[in-house]
């Protein structure tokens, strides 16, 4: 249902029902070429690319349209403002990431393994699409206002996604610890991509597993799940 929008000008590729093939998580699973019939999706992809490159505030509707390979008039056929386009796209990206994580954990038994699978899927899909990190995590805090509010909302939702299925007998960490998890996660992902090492995001996996699990199960057990003892 939720797809990652990308743009490509090349030949038509066979498409699944509904127009777009679903993107599999994981570093090497991303298909490189498919045509987007749906202009709204092209616009979303254009927005992601434009914001990833120059930040939210500096991005103009012309930038978005150009990156999407459509006219400004086409843009206005779908969105009244840049903000509207951003809200729509951000929600799609958020839903895509959360769904990717949820699916990855379905096959796992035990909450620790689920958390690990969720993180693995997340870094996998972000490594294949580093612009998503720039768009969804790096750019919004600088934009302030509603845009930054969506970012904070995404971090809240990521926390909920990690906690899903956790054993009831685990004590709940403090608010500082829980906000600390997602704040740190975002910072580490952003830094890796900003330093040009986006494709190496999966290298962070052991640190991230330790980061997310330690407040719940303690550092020694978290190290084990991270594969680090």
């Amino acid at each position, binding site marked *: 249902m939720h797809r990652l929008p990308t743009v490509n000008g090349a030949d038509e590729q066979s498409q699944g029902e509904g127009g777009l093939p679903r993107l599999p998580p994981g570093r090497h699973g991303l298909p490189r070429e498919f045509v987007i019939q749906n202009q709204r999706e092209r616009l979303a992809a254009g927005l992601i690319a434009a914001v990833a490159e120059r930040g939210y505030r500096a991005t103009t509707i012309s930038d978005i349209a150009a990156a999407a390979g459509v006219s400004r008039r086409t843009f206005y056929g779908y969105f009244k403002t840049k903000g509207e386009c951003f809200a729509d796209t951000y929600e799609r990206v958020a839903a895509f990431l959360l769904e990717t994580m949820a699916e990855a954990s379905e096959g796992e038994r035990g909450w620790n393994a689920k958390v690990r699978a969720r993180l693995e899927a997340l870094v996998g899909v972000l490594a294949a699409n580093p612009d998503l990190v720039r768009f969804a995590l790096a750019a919004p*805090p*600088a*934009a*302030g*206002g509603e845009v*930054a509010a969506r970012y*904070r909302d995404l*971090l809240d939702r990521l926390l909920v996604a990690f906690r899903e299925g956790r054993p009831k007998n685990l004590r709940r960490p*403090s*608010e*500082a*610890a829980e*906000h*600390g*998890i*997602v*704040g*740190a996660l*975002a*910072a*580490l992902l952003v*830094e890796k991509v900003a330093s040009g090492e986006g494709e190496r995001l999966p290298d*962070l996996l*052991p*640190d991230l597993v*330790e*980061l997310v699990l330690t*407040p719940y199960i303690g*550092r020694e057990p978290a*190290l084990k799940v991270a594969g680090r003892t």
Partner: protein
Amino acid sequence: MRSLPQHLSKVPVGREKVSREVLVSFQRERVLVAATGVFAKRGYQKTTVGHIVAAARISVGNFYQHFDNKEDCFLAAFDGIVEGGRERLAESSTADMSWSARAYGALAKLLEIYVEDPLAARVVLVEAQTAGEAATARYNLLVDAAASWLRQGRREYPHAGRLPETFEQAAVAGTAYFLHQRLLKPAKRSASQLLGETAPVILEPIIGAAEMRKLEALVISG
């Protein structure tokens, strides 16, 4: 309330003439205090020079004697807050304290400032990231400096060596994010409550539980 920097706190009152420099400096400080409030309440983007001069009760001409533009004013406010914070941190630590005591004391002091002056906290923790490249760079420097400082703890506490490479960066970013969130969705928390929540995240992993309990006991008894 931000207090005046030392060199201004001895402005003479009464019949003595005050030098022009002192007056200009005094006015600049007042504008920065007012600007901090405006930036914090309206957000950097929505703040105009008009808002600042209204809050500071000066003329636009006066404003431009002190600052080139809104951004310049913001950076000066940011720098002033950070400098003030540094001064207060320096006051409260002494050379003979252990690293853990200095770290705990610094965290406690920063949280006191955060609670006492939420407008200043907001300028540093929230608005700086939205106020352009120069401000963002300053914010990043601050975060990096905090992480570097924390990193020193590894030398003193060998068992901290098993913490992941990214620990300090994660702990500082995570704590900054928590404090950022608390500013936007305020809940009544005293500085000591905040200390109780953040010290286990940022400090205890480095110094260990036993050392942490010792520091907490010292604070209670002292």
